[in-house]
């Protein structure tokens, strides 16, 4: 779940991360008033949940309230990445001496959160890591223990920062990491973290993403920030296909079978099981396949749910076949998914033997599931065939039928 910058800053303010003075404005007149209150030059930032704001003209500077009003009118009318601004963030323009980067995210390989720090802020951190790796430092930490200052201090020090700057930056980086843990964030990033002419530091821009599943846990904080439970807060609005997938998932409480993301390929995917979806999606692409969708099945969905998901995927224009692939399941029954998928194909008016390119779900109740697949002539395999090989076979079949 994404936060607008002004919300992200309010969240960081709770952890006493220093911020520029400012506020939000919804009209040019509000902007003028705010600029007047702030006094001096201001920066106006479009509040959209997408990147490329600066390049699109969504960030502008104004030296006077009148200029701020004029620029605000232009920004408020500017669509960026298909989004109109929620409002404007109006802040005092900072006299910046130097820019740093501080971020916290998860390192999936290390299975730990990682703090990333750079003395080259203001530009894309991936680019810095690629072009100037000596200017990027990282340290992992455990979520089981309180985030300790010394980790942040060692990290900042490793790039040669010393003296008062080291002390100030250590505090900010530690607070950012604590906010990351406290609010179940998946990304907390300050870029740039500006050092002003007077030597102090402020978070000039920041980006925060919260784990979707944690929204309930932080309902009180989100309410204070004015974030409604109904706002999906994704990078783009859900497509009709995705909304229909959510409806499938809402049919009953059993399992998950409707979280779909739409893509433009021809191979429908009924995939899942503990991270298997990502692996399988990658495997399909590695073998030259074009997925029509991403999805997640798990927790033993009902036959009806699996059938409706299958029907939804088959209803997508351009989908020629579906591949039913999972890793090894223990809490999802193979026979129940087999029933659902076969039923969905039949109810869509197709022959399961033709439409299901491959069914590879090893695990609980697989023998019962394989009996169903045999009856309907569906190609299936057990754990003796790797996910990659099954993906390859599905891609091959799909290509052969085009």
């Amino acid at each position, binding site marked *: 779940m994404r936060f607008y910058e002004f919300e992200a800053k309010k969240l960081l303010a709770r952890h006493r991360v220093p911020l520029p003075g400012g506020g939000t404005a919804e009209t040019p007149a509000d902007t003028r008033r705010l600029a007047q209150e702030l006094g001096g030059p201001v920066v106006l930032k479009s509040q959209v949940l997408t990147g490329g704001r600066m390049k699109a003209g969504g960030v502008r500077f104004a030296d006077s309230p009148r200029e701020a009003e004029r620029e605000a009118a232009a920004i408020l009318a500017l669509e960026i990445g298909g989004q109109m601004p929620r409002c404007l963030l109006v802040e005092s323009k900072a006299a910046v001496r130097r820019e740093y980067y501080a971020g916290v995210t998860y390192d999936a390989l290390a299975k730990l959160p990682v703090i990333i720090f750079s003395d080259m802020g203001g530009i894309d951190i991936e680019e810095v890591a690629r072009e100037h790796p000596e200017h990027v430092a990282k340290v992992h930490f455990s979520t089981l223990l309180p985030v300790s200052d010394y980790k942040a201090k060692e990290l900042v020090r490793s790039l040669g920062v010393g003296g008062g700057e080291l002390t100030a930056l250590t505090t900010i980086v530690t607070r950012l990491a604590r906010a990351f843990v406290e609010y179940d964030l998946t990304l907390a990033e300050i870029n740039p973290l500006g050092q002003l002419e007077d030597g102090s530091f402020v978070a000039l821009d920041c980006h925060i993403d919260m784990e979707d599943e944690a929204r309930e846990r932080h309902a009180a904080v989100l309410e204070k920030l004015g974030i409604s439970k109904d706002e999906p807060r994704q990078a783009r609005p859900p497509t009709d296909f995705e909304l229909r997938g959510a409806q499938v998932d809402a049919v009953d409480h059993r399992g998950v079978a409707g979280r779909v993301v739409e893509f433009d390929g021809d191979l429908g995917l009924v995939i899942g099981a503990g991270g298997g979806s990502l692996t399988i999606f990658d495997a399909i692409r590695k073998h030259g396949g074009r997925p029509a969708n991403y999805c997640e099945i798990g927790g033993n969905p009902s036959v009806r749910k699996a059938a409706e998901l299958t029907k939804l995927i088959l209803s997508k224009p351009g989908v020629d076949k579906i591949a039913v692939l999972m890793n090894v399941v223990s809490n999802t029954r193979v*026979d129940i998914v087999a*029933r659902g998928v076969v*039923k969905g194909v039949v109810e869509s008016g197709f022959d399961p033997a033709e439409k299901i390119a491959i069914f590879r779900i090893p695990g609980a109740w697989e023998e*019962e599931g394989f*009996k169903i697949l045999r009856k309907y002539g569906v190609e299936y395999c057990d754990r003796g065939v790797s996910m990659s090989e099954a993906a390859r076979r599905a891609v091959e079949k799909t290509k052969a039928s085009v």
Partner: protein
Amino acid sequence: MGMFIRVDLDPKVAAQADLAKKLAEVCPVNIFEQSADGGARVVPENEDECVLCELCVQAAPPRGVRVVKLYDEGSSLERLE
């Protein structure tokens, strides 16, 4: 009848209100319901949800409930005695 599962209910069992209530209670996927007259009926749209737990078979007297796997040459779950 489902595509994969058919549940046969002995009419004598279906007519007993106490058994009807028990069957409706034990089935985790609501294949049985108690009708207005107190008897049991099978809900056809739920038959394919059967998880083969056999709770209905155990709850009913011998030969009272039979769960037929239509995909497995008609093999069934049934209590004979």
